[in-house]
């Protein structure tokens, strides 16, 4: 049962254009969402997060949008740079408890072409 889904395994965009990575979830009890970036043979690094009480969070070139009614979030990267080429994972955390468990999607490989 995949509670967090990234249906696009890969995305290719031109440098300078916008990259939009999508993520869908099924569990309405998720209250916190995060995006991670991963280069090959390295651990993922935190990129940006959003609480379920918000619908948008922006940090520099990165903006995350949350649509709770659609159970959908997206990551926008503007402008895209070749160094952004990596695997991007969305993750979700459940309300309550102190386990801090994150449920990850399958990842989307972004390629930014110069």
């Amino acid at each position, binding site marked *: 049962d995949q509670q967090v889904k*990234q249906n696009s395994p890969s995305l290719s965009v031109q440098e300078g254009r916008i990259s939009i990575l999508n993520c869908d979830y099924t569990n309405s009890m998720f209250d*916190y969402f*995060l995006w*991670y970036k991963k280069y090959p*043979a*390295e*651990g*993922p*690094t*935190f990129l940006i*997060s959003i609480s379920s009480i918000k619908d948008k969070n922006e940090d520099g070139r990165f903006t995350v949008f949350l649509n709770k009614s659609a159970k959908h979030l997206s990551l926008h990267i503007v402008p895209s740079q070749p160094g952004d080429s990596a695997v991007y*994972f969305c*993750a979700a*955390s459940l309300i309550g408890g*102190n*386990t*801090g*468990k*994150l*449920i*990850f*999607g*399958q*990842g989307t490989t972004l390629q930014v072409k110069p």
Partner: protein
Amino acid sequence: SQTIHQWPATLVQPVGSPLSLECTVEGTSNPNLYWYRQAAGRGLQLLFYSVGIGQISSEVPQNLSASRPQDRQFILSSKKLLLSDSGFYLCAWTPGRGGYTFGSGTRLTVV
């Protein structure tokens, strides 16, 4: 500042051999600790998590086990590796809720 160490970076083991991967965290106390696996072409699968010494929760029934003998030490083990155990293993920590900090990962190849 907090740091997380994970070793070894790469490991090639024959089928049926034992496994021990170690993860330690510095600069914090009582962290929540996690083991994830990224299999080829797949996402990050949570294997085990621990909220305290000796407290281990397993997310997926499998050939692996985990232990937390000390507050900032988390060990992933197997008595007999299977080919399907190959993958990229990641240790992570968090002070409670919120974002994880991941280790650099261990690439395990079972041959």
